[in-house]
């Protein structure tokens, strides 16, 4: 991980922007009129209940889904990504919630899947497996994961190690934007700390980061902007200055409504 800084000009630029983006699956409206921006050198956190549409939103950003309504702009240019490949080619790397690893394949093959380094000419090119292995080992050990063997199938790794492989891959290929869908869910507190530190580091290198999490305690320390989703709609997009950790926690847990319920339950309780 070379610490080369991108030129300051792009640091403050708007990398991604969605304007009233919406998406339906058949008759299910998963996302409706959501607007947000991802700036270079900033972390945008997306928070919300299960099924709020967080994954759907970032799948649109990552090219895995196409939006039905609204606009999606990359560096000011309206686009419609047709495949994850295209997003990757534009420098947007994603860690999907379901990780997008192939359990039976070895670690290094998973690491480079879809972006394999090659040697040779044209149709007779082959995998530069030595380089791929070395790069994988290096990228993982920089995350503090020291695998005995990068030939090991990913399916034999623990959930946390697997998560780290996916994150290390995204960091490695993420040229401009890094999207992480609940990266800390499968991790213990220590590993979660490492991931958050990574996020901060990527931000400092000038990347735009989108971080999805259920845990306001994870989101608040690193986030610059908080997009709250609920049942496919935006509850608002707050700057860090405008919202406190307590307010964020309450919002996410559906605080106000719960308080009313709590009273009721106490009333009927034993």
């Amino acid at each position, binding site marked *: *991980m070379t610490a080369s800084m991108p030129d300051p000009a792009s640091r403050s630029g708007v990398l991604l922007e969605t304007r009233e983006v919406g998406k339906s699956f058949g008759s299910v409206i998963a996302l409706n009129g959501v607007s947000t921006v991802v700036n270079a050198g900033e972390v945008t956190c997306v928070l919300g209940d299960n099924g709020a549409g967080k994954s759907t939103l970032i799948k649109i950003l*990552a090219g*895995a889904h196409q939006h039905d309504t609204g606009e999606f702009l990359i560096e000011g240019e309206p686009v419609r990504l047709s*495949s*994850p*490949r295209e997003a*990757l080619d534009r420098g947007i790397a*994603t860690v*999907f919630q*379901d*990780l*997008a*690893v*192939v*359990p*039976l*394949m070895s670690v290094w*093959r998973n690491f*480079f*899947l*879809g*972006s*394999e380094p*090659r040697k040779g000419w044209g149709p007779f*090119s*082959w*995998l530069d*497996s030595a380089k791929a292995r070395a790069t994988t080992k290096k990228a993982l*050990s*920089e*995350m*503090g*994961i*020291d*695998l*005995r063997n990068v030939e*090991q*199938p990913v399916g*034999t790794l*623990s959930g*946390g*190690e697997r998560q*780290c492989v996916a994150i290390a*891959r995204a960091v490695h290929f993420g040229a401009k934007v890094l999207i992480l869908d609940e990266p800390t869910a499968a991790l213990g507190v*220590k*590993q979660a*700390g*490492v991931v958050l*530190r990574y996020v901060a*580091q990527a931000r400092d290198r000038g990347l735009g980061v989108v971080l999805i999490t259920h845990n306001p305690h994870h989101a608040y320390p690193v986030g610059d902007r908080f997009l709250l989703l609920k049942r496919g709609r935006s509850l608002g997009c707050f700057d860090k200055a405008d919202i406190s950790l307590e307010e964020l926690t309450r919002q996410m847990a559906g605080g106000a409504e719960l308080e009313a319920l709590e009273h009721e339950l106490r009333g009927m309780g034993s």
Partner: protein
Amino acid sequence: MALAVQGDDERVARVGLADRLVSRPELGSVLGALAVFVFFSVLTDQFLSPMGVANWLDDSSTLGIMAVAVALLMIGGEFDLSAGVMTASTALVTAILATQLGWNTWLALLVSLVFALGVGALNGWLVMRTGLPSFIVTLGTFLALQGLNLGITRLVTGSVQVSGMREAEGYESAGYLFASTVDVGGTSFPISIVWWVLAAAVGSWVLMRTRFGNWIFAVGGAAPSARAVGVPVVRTKILLFMTTAFAAWLVGSINILRFTTVQANQGIGLEFQFIIAAVIGGCLLTGGFGSAIGAAIGALIFGMARQGIVFAQWDSDWFQLFLGIMLLAAVLVNNAFRRRAERAKR
């Protein structure tokens, strides 16, 4: 940076070590091949004679070419029941064009290749487009091709076979490539053995050393994940179906040029042999795991067993029984190996 999080997960207990050895998919087939080889070498005299060796290598060769292609397809998570009849269809196309229309052999081979690739692409397209299991789609093409083979052959020739390739223009040169023999120490080995070794080598190389190979494992192991990281899943799978069709064309061409005649009902039932060879070679029926070399060795086991039984002068009535038991034993052993390997690695 690098805070040492380290793999010291207190939740992971002892990890087996010797078990690491058993994780290669082809291990079972290599052991099986050794066992069959030793068994028949001891039991019969002719098995190890140069001619005997040529004999079982010959038998394994065309089966092996197909097994490698079918293994790639199976690793990619799909199935092709039409692969057996395809070997006959391609031979028939070549033979009809060359003998009935008098085309040059090379041209006939080319058209037959285009036909094969077309059928393969159709198979793949149907499977990917409809999302139906490939078992049912290729069962449909299997039946359709079987009908076409018989119907068209009878329509064109009035008989159920097409022969007379030897007289076709360009037969000599094409035969040299597909159907000649190579003399080694006085025994002639058919060139199909070279094709078989080539197929196994290329298959292994593609699988282990190229980007496309990486994609094959990925689309068979977890297609949605593969798509998510930018692997062109549809293209990869269609190409795999076309690879199988290509192999069927190769085998069909070898057969028609070597035997100069082809029967309309040839190839039926062979698709199971391909699948069995691939499975014996360690391929997972559900995709994502396996090896091309393993499949080639699976075919070798098949060929050795088949000829060994003849050398041993066993009653061939029981061959199928033997085959069924061998298949069950092979998958049970492979399965046990894999389970041990997995347990060890958890």
